[in-house]
Structures are given as C-alpha cells and as structure tokens.
C-alpha cells in the first residue's frame, strides 16, 4: 500500500475514512475525511477528520481530528485511507485512480515460499470486521479487487463473509482471490464458496513445478503440491473460474516448457495462466542467491511455454517483466501488472519507445535487476 507521513492532532486511535473535497450531506459525513487547505474555513462538522497542508487553529478550536501533510495533490475523491496517529502514517487502502486494488485478508500463511514478498506474520486479531467496513466504503468499487494475504483461505468462513460483502457493496467488481489452493481441497469449504454464487469471482492458485519435490521445496512445505492439485481439482469440480500463477525462479525456469505441458495436460480447465517475474523483496531478498535468475536467461523457456499454451488456446500472460528483457514474440503476452504504488521506471526508460506500454519495475528491484535492460527504439 502507498504510504505518506503525516502529523495528527485530536486523534488518539487509528481512523479509516473516504477522501472527499466536499459536498457530502451532514448526515453522511462520518465515513469521510475532508481535504482542505489550512487557510480555508469550511463547514467541517461531522467529518471523521480533515486533511490539510498545515496547522489550522480553525480546526484545532473545533477539536476536529486533523491530519497534516506536505501537499494535498496525492488525494483523489473516493480514495480510502487509514491514519495511524502513533506512527504518523497514512496508508492508502484503496485508490480510485489505480487499476490494482487489494484487500489484505490475513497475514497468516500455511506455506513459507522461498520468494515470498510478504512474509507471513502471526495475527492476534481478525481483520475481517475492518475489511468489511473497507469494502462498504469502496462502493461502488473498482473494476478489479484482489483478496490476498498471507493465505486468505486460512480465515475459513470469514472469507465467505468478505465475498458476500463484495457481492452486496461491489456488485460490478471482478474479485480475484490469491491462494495456494491447499485448503480448497476441502470439498465442503469449496462448496460453501460456490454456493455464494458470486458472479465475478476468479480464484488464482500458485503452482511452481510439475513435480512434488520441486514445488514443495519452493513453498517450503512437504505435501503442498498434492494439496494444491487437489484444491485445483475441487475448484474445477465446482465450476470456479481458475487462474494458475507460476512465479519464475532459478529453481524452476529450466522446466518451464514441461510445466506448461503439465498444466495443459492436467488442468485444461484453467481460464488463464500467468507467468510472473519475481519481486525481490521480503523473503526473496533474504534468499536471493538461491532464487534469483536474470529474466533474460529464461527468455527461451518462457517463450516456449507461452507459445505452447497459446497454441492450445489457454490464455497466457506474463506479469512483472519489462518489455526489453522479453524477446519480441513474447511481448504480446506482457501485462502492466505491478501495483502503481510500487511501480517505477528507470532513467534509461525515459528514452524508451514503448515506455507507455511497458509494466516497468518493482520499486524493490534495486536489490537486483536484469543485466539486459535497455531502451527499445521507436
């Protein structure tokens, strides 16, 4: 999530609210945070907080919670923020001007992937109530929303609750649940999810190899491969829209064409396969020497794998890789997949002829990047 520093007044606990520049009727203001210049003196009665660019005696006198930031241009009407006074942090939980929005269902996980960009943490409290409120505030909602983690299925029936809230408040939003699929082999659980009848739901399941030994090594759990396959079978049984995601690492790229064949032969019901460049943060940074491979070095295998699935009419995408490291025939599969808030371009990209079409890099890519980045001519 995108974060900003701030200073708060009249605020002791964290608040979440929806950004507005005004015009909200008084009886609806409690969910909103009004953006105003410090010099202005608007009617701010009823708002959860005000966001200003400087200290304002006007609001201080009225004891209205105040969030002071350096500039007001980052806030768009409808963004949803959480403000944590103890750390002086604003977190953008939802941004209307971005394509990628996500809800963190839980930080707990039942795997320990070597390249996990968001290492699992123990949680003492459930986030579901918070997330339900967030979903309600998001209405009418973005085009696409990811339910992610950790491992979302670990919250059990609370995941159904979240999806029900999505159906209620965000009926036109495409929801994608990112999962390792292990708990989805439980037929009763999958049936419960299916009975919700969510009309715009995709389950994206991560699978990293065509043999258990390799997949289990990558996810750090023995038996995970079998669980995930059974999860995929169960999802197929209940008619879910299924996406399969394969992160590309040093450990599995050599087998990529074989993995493509494995996916086609065993999971032809998949609606989409995404091959993903690795994000070099979190555990991936910690295990870098073990997992890193220059994307340029797997371009041949990736081209073969994408061509293989494409020929068999399985939709394929390549995520998280810049166009320059991809051989030209692969570029049609590349998508702008990196969340805007952590998406950067490099100095050499300024003169690149395809910059507007390219997904760019992760902010964290400074840790290690391909040695083959170069601007493409017009």
């Amino acid at each position, binding site marked *: 999530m995108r974060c900003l520093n701030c200073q708060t007044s009249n605020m002791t606990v964290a608040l979440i609210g929806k950004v507005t520049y005004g015009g909200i009727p008084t009886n609806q203001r409690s969910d909103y945070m009004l953006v105003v210049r410090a010099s202005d003196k608007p009617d701010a009665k009823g708002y959860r907080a005000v966001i200003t660019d400087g200290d304002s005696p006007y609001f201080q006198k009225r004891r209205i919670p105040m969030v002071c930031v350096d500039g007001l241009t980052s806030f768009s009407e409808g963004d949803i923020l959480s403000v944590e006074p103890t750390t002086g942090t604003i977190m953008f939980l939802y941004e209307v001007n971005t394509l990628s929005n996500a809800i963190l269902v839980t930080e707990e996980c039942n795997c320990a992937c070597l390249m996990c960009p968001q290492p699992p943490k123990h949680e003492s409290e459930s986030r579901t109530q918070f997330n339900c409120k967030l979903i309600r505030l998001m209405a009418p909602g973005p085009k696409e929303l990811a339910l992610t983690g950790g491992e979302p299925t670990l919250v059990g029936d609370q995941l159904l609750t979240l999806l029900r809230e999505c159906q209620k408040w965000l009926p036109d939003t495409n929801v994608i649940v990112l999962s390792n699929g292990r708990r989805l*082999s*439980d*037929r009763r659980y999958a049936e419960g999810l299916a009975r919700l009848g969510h009309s715009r739901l995709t389950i994206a399941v991560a699978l990293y190899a065509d043999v258990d030994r390799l997949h289990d090594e990558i996810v750090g759990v023995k038996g995970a491969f079998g669980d995930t396959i*059974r999860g995929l079978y*169960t999802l197929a*049984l209940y008619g879910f829209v299924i996406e399969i995601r394969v992160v590309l690492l040093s450990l599995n790229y050599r087998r990529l064409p074989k993995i493509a064949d494995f996916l086609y032969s065993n999971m032809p019901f998949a609606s989409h396969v995404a091959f993903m460049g690795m994000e070099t943060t979190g555990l991936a940074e910690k295990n870098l020497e073990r997992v890193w491979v220059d994307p340029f070095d797997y371009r041949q295998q990736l081209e073969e794998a994408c061509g293989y699935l494409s020929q068999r009419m399985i939709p394929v995408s390549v995520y998280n890789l810049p166009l320059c490291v991809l051989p030209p025939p692969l570029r049609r599969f590349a998508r702008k997949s990196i969340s805007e808030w952590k998406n950067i371009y490099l100095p050499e990209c300024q003169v690149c002829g395809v910059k507007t079409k390219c997904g760019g890099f992760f902010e964290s890519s400074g840790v290690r990047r391909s040695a083959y980045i170069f601007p493409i001519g017009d």
Partner: protein
Amino acid sequence: MIYNKPLLKEDGSTEVVVDPVFFGSEAVLNTAYLFTGECYIRLLATSEQGIVIAFTPKRPDVTIGVLVQQYLNELIDQQLRVQIRHDTADIQRVIVIEAFAPLDTKEG
C-alpha cells in the same frame, strides 16, 4: 545361452529354443500371437534346454530366417511388457475404478 540357432526341420518348419530363465511362457505366447499372420507357430513341449518354438511360413514370400530374428527381438520387449503389466496391474485396476466411482463415495 538365451536361445540357440534356428534349426530347419524336415517338415519345412524352423525350430528355435529359448531359455526359460529369461523368457516366461506368457511372453513366448504373446509374441507368437503377433506373428501368426505370417506363419503357423507351434509351441512344443518345454525341454531341459528350454521352450521349443516351431515356425512354418504361411506363404512362399515369407522369409522365415528374418522372421525368426524378428520374433526373438520382439520376445525381449514382450517379456518386459509382461513384467510391467504384472507390476502395474493393481494400480491400473484402481485407476479405472477411481475414474468411474461416483463422487459421493470419495473423500474430500
């Protein structure tokens, strides 16, 4: 010796003896079946030296010498098939049962 040199008999048949240490009767029979399009095959009583197989061509254009060599070659593969089938028969049966078992009889 896995098999001896083929022997042409008076009645026009060619006999070869295969060593039962290497080849079971099942493989010998299965292989024989494949060649019954081109020749008549008799499996004669097993002696100490082994299983005696007699080939008689069905048509004048059939070259028995070549055919016997083909038979012996194929016999090695057939012996392997017998072994694979025996090793995997139970698994195959379970696969077919599982493939057609009603859903509600399965765990999940």
